[in-house]
């Protein structure tokens, strides 16, 4: 067994108007099931400590975060080294409830875009209103980023997290760097 690696080995670019970086490896688990049902909600809460968030939202408790993907899918973020245990715990906690719990940690790549102009960089690629007030920490949005599917959220003001498919990691990193290139500040959200 060797140490698992991320798609781009922690690529970073900070020559432009925002810092673009591949995020550290984080555990990701997809749970498919009726996330509105008491049984599934309870299972999620008992394992992660977090309450199931509403549509378009995310909820964090300690080192666990639940992201609302659809009415029958939740993405669980957890420390990479606890994925195996969390998988088992979720499966057990669900009991007889019909769920599919699967590790997708390595199926994804994840990036951060940080800085005062982070919103502008993202708004060049995503057809989403990312103006202050319209998009804020706590929200979780699946959308299109340039030509690929992505999920985006703001862990804090002036910082975005982006999750995409692992095979598209290079494309997403490169396209974020183009959007963050020097001299490309828009001045739309000031």
């Amino acid at each position, binding site marked *: 067994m060797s140490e698992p690696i991320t798609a781009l080995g922690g690529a970073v670019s900070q020559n432009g108007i925002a810092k673009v970086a591949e995020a550290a490896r984080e555990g990701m688990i997809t749970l498919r099931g009726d996330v509105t049902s008491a049984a599934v909600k309870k299972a999620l809460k008992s394992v992660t400590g977090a309450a199931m968030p509403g*549509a378009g939202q995310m909820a964090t408790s300690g080192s666990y975060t639940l992201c609302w*993907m*659809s*009415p029958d899918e939740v993405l669980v973020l957890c420390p990479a080294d606890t994925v195996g245990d969390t998988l088992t715990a979720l499966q057990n906690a669900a009991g007889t409830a019909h769920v599919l719990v699967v590790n997708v940690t390595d199926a994804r790549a994840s990036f951060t875009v940080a800085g005062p102009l982070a919103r502008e960089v993202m708004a060049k690629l995503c*057809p989403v209103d990312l103006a202050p007030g319209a998009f804020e920490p706590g929200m979780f949005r*699946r*959308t299109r980023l340039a030509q690929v*599917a992505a999920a985006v959220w703001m862990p804090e003001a002036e910082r975005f997290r982006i999750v995409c498919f692992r095979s598209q990691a290079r494309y997403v990193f490169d396209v974020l760097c183009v959007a963050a290139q020097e001299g490309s500040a828009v001045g739309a959200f000031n």
Partner: protein
Amino acid sequence: MLILTCPVCGVTAEETEFHAGGEAHLKRFGPGSSEQDFEEYLFMRENPRGVHFERWRHVYGCGKWFHAARCTTTLEVFGTYPAQTLEPPADLCKSISKKRPGWSWREFS
């Protein structure tokens, strides 16, 4: 380019987040069905000037299929609703009637 509201996740987004999926409320005919029923199910489609019901998928969002009632001439969207139904919701039909009195589409009106 249209904007649509996904009735599943509640997001209002531009057309590039969605994928059009043809006519809504098709009834499947499988083995044992007549040639005519099967032909109609597989190939015959409405092409109305005006009120139309179609399938869309929120492909870059929650991934769910839903239905939209739309005017093919003005592109007005009368409403969207989840795909797990055999017919358009009654209140939607009523609100279409207000805007397009006398409309009909297949067996619905």
